[in-house]
């Protein structure tokens, strides 16, 4: 297998964006191409992740993007895996470079939904559930994670304030990220006093609906060395699956796909959870970050809340979790999120993360899942 590297990365700001999905997809791609210092004609193909292109009247995004980049003859592919689309797309691109099919690929994630409003975005997102059993019975995504949260509160020594601390921590990080959707500090009281969306989750336990696009250039080590710019190496890649509906899972407070994907990625990279300096994890809701940090092996099951309470997941503490601000503060344009996590890791490991830099970081991890973790991909990156 070829060694695979990230040679460039870029994102639009995340938030409510006025431009079309075609426009933001292109903007992010151009910033990644410029970050890599390559000519677009060196890109051999693109992998695009998107879920609700139909909501902005544009599916089949690939040829539109490639035409705008002046490379309409190059192939493209759009991949959908709900909120995990970005990492799955990244993984497919990774596999193609590793196999030697391509030496340079453009991987772009994109989403544009905020113009549809809260009711319809909530409705579209519910289509990512096992609809026959969940969405059809009125389950929203906050509702499904709220069901996990109640199970966690019932099973372990945890409080709603503990979940609130995750939001506070991620907003503290997001304030330092100029691309973040929610750049404001909040308090535990702010979270506790925000309106209930699906009990026990309140508005500030939930990530926002965001528009945004993120893009990276993925290439062989040989290509990276020839181009001379800063790059990071992808040393581990793993995917996993879980029963689509929560009801089918052995434990309601564990996401099996995370454990499967993490084990595969750690094994490939030859590391354990203890070696990870920082992680961008899928904190679509505060409860999710707690569960993720346990399933990824950073903390024992049931102890994730204690780590948050003790500040062990803050920036430059035991392990920096979501230095970018995470989905909660940076925002969650669902097709872009998994690629945006790679952008953060690239910025961190190449010394471009500014005030939110994780000091002396050598190994970063991305963890991104679809729906309630029915699909998941984990990647490990190392500085070179």
């Amino acid at each position, binding site marked *: 297998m070829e060694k695979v590297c990230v040679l460039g990365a870029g994102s639009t700001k995340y938030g409510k964006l006025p431009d079309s999905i075609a426009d933001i997809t292109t903007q992010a791609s151009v910033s990644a191409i410029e970050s890599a210092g390559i000519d677009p004609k060196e890109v051999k193909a693109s992998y695009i992740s998107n879920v609700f292109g139909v909501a902005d009247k544009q599916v089949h995004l690939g040829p539109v993007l490639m035409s705008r980049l002046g490379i309409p003859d190059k192939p493209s592919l759009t991949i959908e895996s709900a909120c995990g689309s970005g990492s799955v797309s990244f993984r497919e691109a990774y596999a193609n470079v590793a196999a030697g099919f391509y030496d340079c690929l453009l991987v772009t994630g994109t989403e544009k939904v905020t113009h549809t409003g809260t009711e319809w975005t909530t409705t579209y997102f519910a289509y990512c559930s096992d609809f026959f059993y969940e969405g059809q019975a009125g389950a929203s995504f906050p*509702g499904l994670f709220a069901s996990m949260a109640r199970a966690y509160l019932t099973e372990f020594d945890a409080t709603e304030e503990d979940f609130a601390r995750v939001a506070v921590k991620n907003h503290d990080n997001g304030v330092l990220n100029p691309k973040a959707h929610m750049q404001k500090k909040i308090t535990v009281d702010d979270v506790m006093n925000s309106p209930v969306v699906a009990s026990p989750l309140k508005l500030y336990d939930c990530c926002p609906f965001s528009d945004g696009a993120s893009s990276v250039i993925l290439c062989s080590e040989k290509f990276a060395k020839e181009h001379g710019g800063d790059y990071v190496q992808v040393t581990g890649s793993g995917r996993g699956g879980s029963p689509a509906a929560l009801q089918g899972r052995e434990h309601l407070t564990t996401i099996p796909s995370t454990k499967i994907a993490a084990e595969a990625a750690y094994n490939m990279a030859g590391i354990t959870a203890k070696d990870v300096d920082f992680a961008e994890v899928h904190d679509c809701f505060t409860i999710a970050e707690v569960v993720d940090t346990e399933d990824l092996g950073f903390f024992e099951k049931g102890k994730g809340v204690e780590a948050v309470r003790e500040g062990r997941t803050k920036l430059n503490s035991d392990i920096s979790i979501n230095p970018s601000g995470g989905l909660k503060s940076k925002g969650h344009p669902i097709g872009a999120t998994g690629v945006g996590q790679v952008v953060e890791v690239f910025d961190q490991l190449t010394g471009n993360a500014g005030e939110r830099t994780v000091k002396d970081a050598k190994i970063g991890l991305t963890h991104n899942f679809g729906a309630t973790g029915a699909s998941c991909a984990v990647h490990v990156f190392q500085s070179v």
Partner: protein
Amino acid sequence: MSVEEQLIEIAKQGKLLTHKCTNCGYLHLSTAYYCLKCGSKGFEDVLLEGTGSVATYTIITVAPAGFEKYTPYAFVVLNLDNSNLRISGFMEGIATPADLPVGTRAKITGFDERGIIIEKQ
């Protein structure tokens, strides 16, 4: 009838259609086509009473389209009696967590535009 239609028709009678593997005996919801444990394809129908205890739930106040008029309502995951299975569904008339402690006895009572309907017993 499709597997979903069969499950719906039985749910309307307040029961749950399940599939028992004829090879290893493992019980599944009736939308399973292959056994989770042994991979075999043969199933026999088993009707459950649809009773159980609440494993977890949420009370939804911000609803997807079509459900606004029912808020607040609960989305419930039920541990089914005498089985390894859970089923989820819609429960109306739940306003606060005090209305539905985890472990509350409940039962499937029907199926309509709100999916599988579950009521407290």
